[in-house]
Each structure stands twice: as C-alpha cells, then as structure tokens.
C-alpha cells in the first residue's frame, strides 16, 4: 500500500496530490503566458540568440517540468475515490456505500478506518508495484473509452473474480491476521485462490434496495 499512502501523505503545503495539481496549473499557465508573450515581444526574431534563454525556459525547462508534475498528478488523482466515482453510473452507488456510516460492507469498513486515505478503490483493486499500477491504469483507460463511447450495459459485471492477492498484499502476516489461527490453517489455499477471502468476509459492497432493483452494479 506504500504507493497509495504516498499520495495521501502531506507536505508542508498540503497533500502531495494537491501540491502537484497546483504546480501543474501554474506551470501550464506560465508556459502559455510565455508563448503568448514571445509571439508579441519577439515577433519575427524568435530564433535570435537573445531570445533563446527566454525560449529555453518556456519551451525547454517548463515543458519537461510539466511532463513530470502532470503525470504525477494524473496518476495519483486517478487513484482517488472521487475519480472512480466521477465516471461510472455503477460506481456512484459503491461510493455512497463507502460514505454510509451504518454500512457493514468491507469497503465501508476500510473507508472508515482510513485504510488508504482517499484511494480505497485503488488500494483494493490494484496489485502491488509497477506491474499492478500499469495494469490498473490500462484497465482504467479501457473503461474510460468504454464509458465515453457508451458501449457498456447495466448491470456492470466484474471482468474477473476478485483475487485474494488484493487482500493479502496488506493483511498477510499482520498481527491481526495471524491471531485468527484459521487464517494460518487455510493460508496456502488462500494464496492459491482455492478459497476466497470474500467467502467468509462479505459483503464487499452493499447496495441500496433501489439500486439493486434498478440493476445498477453487478459486484457485491
């Protein structure tokens, strides 16, 4: 979970995500202003040596900086619950469940304990490391295209069964986990996906009766 905790952690000026979003906005504005001023101030002599320092800043250094801060901001922002909830009609009901103080779902329980500080969806649905991040972003990209093109059907179903590895990546080996000796007894089966965590620990999400009858959401 280290990568998700990083986005939610704070710097002197707020969270790293907020800082990177603000930096992206400022750098973008600076680049646009620099280009506009160059077109006005250096019209007809933009390739002269005296103007190269100006252009080095606005066409060299700032764009590279923008590439870094915007990618960081985008990658971190797309891990947020608010991003997941912004797209899918189906996801809205899951986000409402997260915020429901009376919900007994696993997702709401994790959310109330601030397990991943605003990026609970990502923390439970993406695997560890670079491969996990890459796979999650690729899936997300496909889903955005599907959503924008309208080529989806309700209720939305999970493409794959939820894997135990998403639970074990955080819980395996923790004091709380090993204190329940049954976990140790079935650990090999859990790791081999022969037994599902959600078989005992359920429901993962709770939808309201209205949402269920409307056929919204397929995973629970």
């Amino acid at each position, binding site marked *: 979970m280290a990568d998700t905790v990083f986005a939610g952690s704070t710097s002197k000026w707020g969270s790293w995500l907020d800082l990177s979003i603000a930096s992206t906005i400022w750098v973008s504005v600076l680049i646009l202003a620099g*280009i506009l001023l160059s077109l006005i101030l250096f019209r*007809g002599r933009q390739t002269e040596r005296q103007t190269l320092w100006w252009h080095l800043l606005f066409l060299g250094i700032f*764009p590279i900086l923008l590439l870094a801060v915007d990618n960081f901001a985008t990658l971190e922002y797309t891990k947020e619950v608010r991003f997941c909830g912004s797209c899918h009609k189906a996801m809205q009901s899951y986000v409402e469940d997260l915020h429901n103080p009376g919900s007994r779902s696993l997702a709401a329980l994790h959310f109330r304990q601030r397990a991943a500080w605003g990026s609970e969806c990502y923390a439970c649905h993406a695997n560890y490391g670079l491969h996990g991040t890459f796979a999650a972003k690729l899936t997300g990209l496909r889903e955005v295209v599907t959503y924008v093109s309208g080529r989806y059907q309700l209720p939305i179903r999970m493409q794959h069964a939820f894997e135990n590895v998403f639970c074990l990546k955080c819980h395996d080996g923790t004091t709380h986990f090993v204190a329940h000796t049954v976990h140790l007894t079935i650990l090999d089966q859990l790791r081999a996906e022969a037994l599902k965590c959600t078989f005992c620990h359920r429901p993962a999400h709770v939808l309201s009766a209205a949402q269920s009858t409307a056929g919204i959401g397929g995973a629970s």
Partner: protein
Amino acid sequence: MSVWKFVPALRTGDWRSKLMTCSQLMIGTAALLSLLSMLTRNPLLLVSFMSVQGLLLVGVICFVIVALISQRTLVTEEYGPGDIIFREGDPGRHVYIVKSGTVEVLVQQPDGTQRAIKQLGTGETFGEMALLRQAPRSATIRTVTAAQVFKISPDDFLALYTHLPRVKETFSQIMMDRLGELERR
C-alpha cells in the same frame, strides 16, 4: 481573422522559424489541455492529456534543434509589404542582406514621427551598426514591397569581418556613411 496574423512565422519565416512556431503550437496545445484537465478533473481530458503528452517531448526536441543550429547558419526570412523587420531601439544584433524587394530606413524625429531617409534594394545590407557599435538599433527597417532578406548571425558576421580585410573595409565605409546620414537627419 487569419491564423497567420498570430503566427506569422508559419507563413513568412524560414524553416527554423517554422520549427520554432511548431514547437510553440505543440507545447501550447499540451499545456492548455493539461490546464483544462487539472481545472475540471474531467476523466476524458485527463486521458487526453496522457495521450498527447508526446507533443511536449516533440515540441522540446524541435526547440532544441532550433536552438542548436539557428546561430550557425544563414537564414532567409520573407516579409510582406509594410512589415517591420526591426524597430529603432531594439536590442537585435543580426545583420541583414536584401535578397529581393525593397526596404526603407526610418528614423524617429524629435516630434515622434518617423521619416524615411533611405531605401535599400537587392544586395544592400542593414543591421551591422548595432552589432559593430554594440548599441541598440539606430533605425527602424520597414519593407516597401514584399521582400526576402538573408539574416546573418552575429558570430558569422564577426568571423567574416575580422578575417577578411576587404569585408571589414567595405562595412567600415558603409557604417561611416550611415552615421553621417543619421547625423544629418
């Protein structure tokens, strides 16, 4: 209004100016998309920026190419009738040779108006005074007709000026004549 009004280098400039303008357009587009995506947090805009961020890199590469070679080679620039090539008081140091067309030399009068003191045609030079005197431009140059000019970098010109005595002699004489003209204005 034509897009050429905003980016005249795309129409009149040599390939270096065009490359520089392309660099600005690519980086500007990516920066605008980045700004909009961060302000709205719209998923489609976020994905769009991720898709076009290659423009930033290509834009930077275009700029680096221009920065590396623009000072080393002879540049041809094209201007329409009435275009200003440079203004009196500007800090430019390039030297120009008229390739085709006619340009006029304008000097500012005490009452603020500008008076044409001379016209220059094919083969004639301008811009050397600012470089040799290490001073701002002493006059405004405006095209009379559509014109093409060779633009010589300060380094290239100084290399010719210091190594070829006849070039030095010619330009020294031209500069003396022009200083005289300016004093008589």
